């Protein structure tokens, strides 16, 4: 594992690492090697596969005679006797022993130690600790392991790699958010994402709000620009530690409540010459698949709604004969349906290749365009170039990197650019004082977040009869959206393309331009002073400056580009951290005692300003604020100011390198808990205790040999938490309304009631775990069981709005998460050239709402899917899991038979299921478990790795399938559509036409339902109701045309929650396949490189299992809120392929 510390040449540093100390980073220099004059002298070089190893220990076994290799890996040992065994060791490598037989020089090649028993991981506050000493679970990954993913979000690259962590993509596209959640949701707020800490600077990890997207005015613009984290450059990552439990993160205080991902960037190493590293990645994003859409039937209204085509003998249209009637143009030719007249509905005749007028009034054939959804996407291309230069001498080291990433998305004008740079240096002023400084800079430019195109293929849910049917040729029609006047084509203006479906979508895709530019600057300055040989002092100051500015240009869609919009936005966030720490570490006999005392100061503020034109642009197509038709609107505010001061300590000890114990405590003083009247419970203390026991050390001789390592660990911790700035204070909001030459002012009053004695939130957590390894670490199991309770959450609960307020701010609740995380790592086969590893993770989190608040009658609504979303809500209900789904639109059932209660429309002769009206439970949205499997085969310098991750259980709601079924575009909509797909064939007594799309709903009509007979007489359903089947058998009702049944069942007005679109989700994703080849050094040297490697990676390649309806993309939940379960529309399956070349000089 530690080979990545290579080329670690800082002798002192390495020396420190070799000692069993708690604080490798901070341990004072101590060389325990004595020199004694002996007879023989031997010189040598220690290398690994990359070259010289500096700092390796070379000792004559059983003596104190030893030395440490220099920068070039050279060493000299004197006084070596024949027969002595020279032991060469370096952390992370297997110790080698060589018998001295008088050789003058020896060459040693170190091989990586796969047992990794002494691995050092980065923990809270950036402290490096031996993992064996930890009483809690930490997973550390190396930067290079994540680099291959080449994702914009550093979160996405962790997918499937860490047990206990749920990571899933949203529908936000390449720079959109990625959801990450550690050990379940502990708060009801929706943001349960861990913080990201980069070199000690905490970055916010905001969630993307599901509600932001999908407003009808946006036509499906997703508006997800991700968060601050996209400004990080993964090429700079040295290591990534995922701190999961409260004990691991307690030292981060409030902000670490949901866990922490701690990133350490690379540093310069002292060594000969410069280390130059160059890497280049070329990638493509390819939409390889669309959901299952049907390709048998074309445009047509559902049965009962046909008002076009041929007429019968009486001069009436064949109202129900969807299968044989074509819409006709004014000249009587067959034509596709028009927007506004069932456009995008695919209940029409079977494709037959006959001549038909296209949407652009040119003749075409009546045929499907099978992959029209997939065709709507482009091939995305991306490139990432990174150069880093590092070097240094014994006093000074530096690391610099420059990186540029460019990515074109799979939709027009959707792109991303990032230029980032990092400079770090450290200098020893004296033996005792070291100064380190760094500056990180990044400019990111996400442009035009994608549109949820999928909804247009399931009919356009924002305009139900203006979608893309099965004959829509995306490539052909995509540029046919404008009138000659430049605005969006319209039939009112006689434009040729006025009838091309949903062409406003393409207008927006091509003619709107939203550019966001983010600048992230993070300077740091640290001073370390060695006060005594066991005591150090460190002062740190760092800042996080984050700026966003956005420009939005919308060309007017009206006639001659009337309308349009221009907007400018600015946002600034400035965060300052000042810390001072005393660290002590002393070994007394078998005991080691260590600890620290630390003070922290944290200040944050945000400021935002926005301006936009109102009422359209005076001069069309000219983008500046002064071009506003009405007075431009503006806003600006200072917000999010917060200050926090903290004191933290840790005291710990170990005994004989087998028992370890840590106690920490932290007190925070947070401004966000202070009321305007200067009161408030703003000071809070929270402790933790953790320990581990290395059984294999204690019972070294008693354990069987095949047990390599056996550790048990346990911890208990409490974390306190404050709340958002201003949240506990409120005032009136000033409003003003413009009249012809004056303003009128208003004051709106808050809708929230405040409790005036709020307490800080508390999380209590304990965990126990084992880390056992067998057969020379060929098999390793790391398992954790945890239980966490979050209490006294500061949150709003809804109260009856008739009381004058809609919510109350209270301390509420007790949410419990308990679960198991297991990582099983195995090496089933290994020899000199080959190694095969196979690793698994398993995560199961159970969540329960133990208690809410007396003012909550029964549940708290987490995400409220309103009418458009079938009134499905995710709620927190006492005694149930977080994220229970409930709805008032489940089908109403007959208590006697359990069957769905039906109603009948005699005009269009269909039955439909009634909605229940009362809120009922659907089930939990929380997955039963998550897992991952990864395997790799290495042969000499070539390695192949495959990783998969999976989710089992938990409900989702697919609105793509709901509406797609309703309009007949999905594959599932073929069911019962014809005899071949199970439809009943019958000749209707109403019109004498023979139909084959009959369906008998499994439901019951209540007593009194009137069913009109062909002779106009009414059959009235008898007492206790009668089932459809029995009425059908009686001959008083004909089968329902499946199109109308499905339309009503899944449509917007009468639809009910049913398992064709609300169901449990299971999937297994083939996340990544990569091939990596390291060129032999003789080949590399031919191009002047020390090392050269090539890699080929494929990501998001497909799903081995996917239970989404119509095999939709299972990772298409809107936004990244914990409480979100809605997949608002189909989302493309996009695979990424990358070629990477990496060279160091």
């Amino acid at each position, binding site marked *: 594992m530690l080979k990545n510390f290579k080329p670690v040449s800082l002798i002192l540093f390495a020396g420190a690492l070799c000692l069993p100390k708690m604080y490798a980073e901070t341990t004072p220099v101590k060389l325990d090697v004595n020199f004694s004059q002996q007879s023989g002298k031997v010189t040598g070089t220690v290398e690994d596969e990359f070259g010289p190893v500096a700092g390796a220990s070379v000792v004559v076994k059983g003596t104190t005679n030893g030395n440490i290799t220099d920068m070039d890996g050279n060493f000299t040992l004197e006084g070596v006797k024949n027969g002595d065994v020279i032991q060469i060791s370096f952390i992370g490598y297997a110790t080698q022993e060589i018998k001295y037989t008088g050789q003058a020089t020896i060459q040693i090649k170190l091989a990586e130690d796969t047992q990794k028993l002494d691995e050092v991981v980065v923990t809270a506050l950036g402290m490096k600790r031996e993992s064996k000493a930890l009483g809690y679970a930490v997973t550390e990954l190396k930067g290079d392991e994540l680099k291959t993913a080449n994702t914009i979000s550093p979160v996405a690259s962790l997918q499937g790699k860490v047990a206990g962590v749920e990571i899933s993509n949203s529908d936000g596209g390449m720079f959109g958010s990625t959801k990450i959640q550690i050990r379940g949701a502990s708060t009801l707020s929706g943001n349960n994402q861990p913080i990201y800490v980069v070199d000690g600077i905490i970055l916010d990890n905001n969630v993307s709000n599901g509600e932001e997207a999908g407003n009808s005015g946006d036509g499906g613009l997703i508006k997800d620009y991700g968060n601050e984290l996209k400004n990080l450059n993964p090429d700079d990552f040295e290591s990534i530690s995922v701190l999961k439990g409260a004990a691991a993160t307690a030292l981060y205080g409030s902000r670490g409540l949901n866990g922490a991902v701690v990133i350490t960037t690379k540093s310069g190493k002292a060594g000969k010459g410069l280390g130059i590293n160059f890497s280049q990645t070329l990638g493509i994003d390819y939409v390889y698949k669309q959901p299952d859409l049907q390709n048998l039937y074309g445009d047509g209204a559902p049965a009962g709604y046909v008002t076009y085509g041929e007429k019968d003998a009486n001069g009436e249209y064949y109202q129900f004969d969807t299968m044989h009637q074509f819409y006709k143009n004014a000249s009587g030719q067959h034509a596709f349906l028009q927007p506004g007249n069932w456009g995008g509905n695919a209940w029409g005749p079977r494709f037959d290749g006959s001549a038909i007028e296209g949407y652009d009034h040119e003749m075409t054939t009546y045929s499907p365009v099978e992959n029209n959804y997939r065709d709507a996407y482009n091939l995305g291309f991306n490139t990432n170039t990174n150069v880093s230069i590092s070097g240094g001498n014994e006093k000074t080291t530096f690391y610099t990197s420059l990186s540029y990433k460019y990515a074109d998305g799979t939709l027009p004008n959707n792109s991303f650019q990032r230029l980032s740079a990092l400079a770090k240096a450290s200098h020893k002023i004296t033996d005792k004082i070291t100064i380190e400084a760094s500056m990180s800079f990044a400019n990111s430019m996400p442009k035009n977040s994608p549109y949820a195109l999928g909804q247009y293929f399931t009919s356009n849910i924002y305009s139900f009869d203006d979608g893309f049917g099965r004959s829509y040729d995306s490539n052909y029609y995509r540029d046919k959206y404008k009138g000659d006047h430049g605005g969006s084509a319209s039939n009112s203006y006689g434009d040729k393309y006025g009838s091309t479906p949903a062409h406003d979508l393409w207008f927006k895709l091509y003619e709107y331009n939203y550019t966001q530019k983010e600048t992230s600057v993070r300077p740091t300055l640290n001073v370390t002073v060695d006060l005594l040989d066991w005591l150090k002092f460190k*002062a740190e100051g760092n800042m996080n400056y984050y700026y966003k500015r956005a420009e939005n240009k919308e060309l007017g869609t009206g*006639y001659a580009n009337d309308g349009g919009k221009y907007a400018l936005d600015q946002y600034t966030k400035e965060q300052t951290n000042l810390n001072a720490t005393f660290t002590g570490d002393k070994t007394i006999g078998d005991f080691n005692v260590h600890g620290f005392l630390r003070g922290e*100061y944290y200040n944050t503020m945000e400021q935002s300003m926005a301006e936009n034109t109102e009422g359209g642009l005076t001069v069309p197509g000219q983008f500046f604020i002064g071009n506003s038709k009405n007075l431009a609107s503006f806003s600006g505010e200072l917000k999010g100011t917060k*200050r926090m001061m903290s004191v933290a300590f840790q005291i710990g000890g170990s005994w004989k390198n087998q028992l370890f114990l840590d106690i920490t405590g932290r007190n925070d003083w947070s401004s966000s808990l202070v009321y305007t009247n200067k009161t408030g419970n703003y000071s809070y203390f929270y402790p933790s205790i953790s320990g581990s026991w290395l059984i294999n050390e204690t019972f070294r001789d008693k354990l069987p040999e095949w047990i390599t390592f056996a550790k048990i660990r346990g911890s208990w911790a409490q974390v306190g938490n404050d709340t958002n700035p201003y949240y506990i204070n409120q005032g009136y909001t000033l409003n003003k309304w413009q009249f012809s030459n004056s303003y009128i002012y208003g004051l709106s009053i808050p809708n929230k009631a405040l409790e005036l004695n709020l307490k800080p939130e508390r999380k209590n957590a304990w965990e126990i775990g084992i880390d056992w390894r067998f057969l020379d670490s060929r098999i390793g199991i790391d398992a954790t069981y945890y239980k966490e309770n979050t209490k006294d959450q500061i949150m709003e609960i809804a109260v009856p709005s008739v009381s004058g307020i809609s919510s109350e701010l209270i301390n509420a609740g007790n949410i419990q998460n308990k679960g198991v995380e297991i990582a099983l790592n195995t090496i089933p086969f290994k020899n000199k050239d080959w190694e095969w590893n196979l690793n698994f993770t398993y995560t199961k989190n159970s969540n329960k709402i133990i208690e809410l608040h007396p003012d909550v009658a029964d549940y708290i609504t987490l995400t409220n899917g309103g009418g458009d979303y079938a009134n499905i809500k995710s709620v927190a209900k006492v005694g149930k899991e977080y994220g229970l789904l409930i709805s008032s639109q489940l089908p109403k059932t007959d208590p006697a038979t359990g069957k769905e209660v039906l109603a009948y429309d005699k005009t269009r002769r269909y039955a439909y299921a009634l909605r229940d009206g009362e809120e009922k439970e659907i089930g939990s949205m929380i997955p039963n478990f998550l897992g991952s499997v990864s395997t790799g085969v290495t042969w000499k310098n070539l390695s192949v790795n495959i990783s998969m991750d999976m989710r089992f259980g938990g409900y989702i709601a697919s609105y793509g399938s709901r509406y797609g079924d309703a309009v007949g575009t999905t594959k599932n909509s073929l069911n019962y559509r014809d005899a071949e797909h199970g439809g009943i064939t019958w000749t209707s007594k109403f019109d004498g036409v023979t139909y084959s799309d009959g369906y008998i709903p499994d439901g019951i009509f209540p007593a009194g339902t009137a069913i009109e007979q062909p002779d106009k007489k009414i059959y009235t359903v008898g007492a206790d109701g009668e089932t459809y089947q029995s009425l059908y058998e009686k001959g008083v009702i004909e089968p329902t045309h499946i199109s109308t049944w499905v339309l009503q069942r899944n449509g917007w007005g009468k639809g009910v929650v049913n398992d064709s679109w609300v169901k449990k989700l299971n999937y297994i994703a083939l996340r990544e396949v990569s091939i990596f080849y390291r060129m032999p050094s003789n080949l590399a040297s031919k191009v002047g490189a020390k090392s050269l490697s090539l890699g080929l990676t494929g990501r998001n390649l497909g799903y081995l299992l996917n239970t989404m309806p119509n095999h939709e993309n299972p990772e298409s939940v809107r936004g990244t809120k914990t409480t979100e379960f809605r997949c608002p529309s189909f989302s493309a399956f996009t695979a990424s392929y990358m070629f990477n070349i990496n060279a160091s000089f």
Partner: protein
Amino acid sequence: MQVSNAVTLIKKTRNMKYTSLLTATLIGATLFTTSCKDDFADINTNPSTVSKGHLPYLFAQGVHDFEPADYTFWFYNGKYYAQFIQAFVPTGGNTELYNRMDQTGGQGSQNYNVLKIAREMDKVMKDLGPDEAAKYQYVRTLLDPLIVYLGMFDTDTYGDMPFSEACMAPYTSPMLLTPKYDTVQELYANWLEMLDNTINILTTTPAVAQTFPGSQDMVYAGDITKWAKLANSLKLKIAVRLLTQDKAKAIAIAEEVVKSPAGVLNGTEDDFIFNKGITDYHFNPGNTVGFGAPKKEVADFLIKNKDPRVRFFYTKNHFNSKVVQAFYDAGKDVPAYIEANVNSEMENGKKVFKSWKGAGEPWVRYYGIPADIGAANQTVKYGDYFDENRFKLVGASAEKKFTPYSIFQQENCHGNVTYTVPVVPDGPVIQDKENHAWYGFYMTSGEVYLYLAEFKLLGANLPSSAQDYFSKAIEYSVKSYDRWAGLNQIPYYGTTYGYDPNEVSIELKNGEIEAMLANPDYQLTGSKEEQLEKVYIQEYIHFTYQPSDQFVAVRRSGIPKVGSALIPWQLLGPNTEVPRRLEIGIPSKTDKMYEIKTASLKSQGFTGGTSLEPSILNRERVWQDAGAPNYGEGPNF
């Protein structure tokens, strides 16, 4: 900052003994526990909020938040009313499900938006002390008429509601989160008292000079006399609702109103019609109101009587004379009812439009559609209304569709509709796209005078004759709608866009009112019953853009009546199966109000829930509707 001081201190003294350092740190660290609280309070106070409640501002907020019919109302409840009572018909025609509803919204709790501001004003005034508070009597009391107006709007279809205990949570300890329900009967009594109080305050000279800046009054610009008229007129609105339950009291109220020194709304200048700012468009044109087209008989009645309001209620159809000619040129028939209004000649074998027949422009551009169930599928009989294939013409590169009938006038609901003049295929593009402030239409003098006419006929002792009230009512109604249409700049108001020379603009013209009033349908002739029917027909017409009031008027009067010669009620199904209230959801068990709501449903005899049989919604009535005649049966007072 104390920490940073501590850090500096530590840096300066790093050569000192570590014990001193530790001490210094601890001192530094503990300092802020006490001295930072003040800073923290500042830091944690949102600078963008206002801490003091300024009463004239709160008043303006209350007026601004007065919203009886927001988008969801137009989209849901309003549409149900307009279609249930046969004012409008969906453009796809009525189906068997014409009497069912799905979602509801936009009504039932509108009054709280203003009530809670009134309560806040009460609290601010209490904090000010009686002397200071006395200056704000006006601004406070002016919200009461608005609350009463909204209260009626909310209770008209939903019945009892919390009021006396509502919106009290911020001012009670422990917070009153679950207010009790007041019955409609109690509410009416309470509201009458509130109105009397307002009238009293506004019609007597205040003891202290009032702080009431007219610049903060978006309704009447500070004119107290108009506010007093509004408050007094609102008593009539309550009175008519009381007729079914307590006719004597209703009549007494009407008599009281007429005697009051406050007076009633009397002429368009007094109308309660206002806008909320020049960029307040109400809602976006993308959210269209789906009322559909006027029912044929309603539009025909207005046309027959040359009632100018037909032009303010509905859109012109697309068949201007140029379009008619284009159909002729294409060899296509225009719908028969349009053809009936055309004088054409054959010239050189071509049919040529010569002039409009009948009432001529603009009247020949307004048509309703039949309400028969399933009409849209009877192409032979009703194809001229529903068969879109008949209304298409082909141009050089595209096809155009023309709508032969009128529909709901969207621009009456939002101020930013772009209107495109219907032109022949390949014709010019002519648009009316100015955005303008949207004006809401609330209580007008037409409504007041209709009530007075009604009360007079019902035996109230009122000074003028029923005919006087009636004629004035219609005149006011037409004038108010004319003014409103002008303020909202609906298409063709004062312009014809210069496209079709045969086109006539729609604004009210001189002499039109007089001519209209001379029609027998607009004269209180015939039996008392016939006279009452005429008044109720006028209420029905007047409330076209106030669907909830229209629903109430029809519900309490049974007018339109089956078989009427004026506007007949059409039996689309049994009249016992048309809802008289809207669905009230089953209270959620998780609602703190569950028990109170359940008890209220029970006490009113209501079945809760959705997808209810329409007959249930006909049978289970709100208090003020109990005993009223069923649809189409005519009045039973």
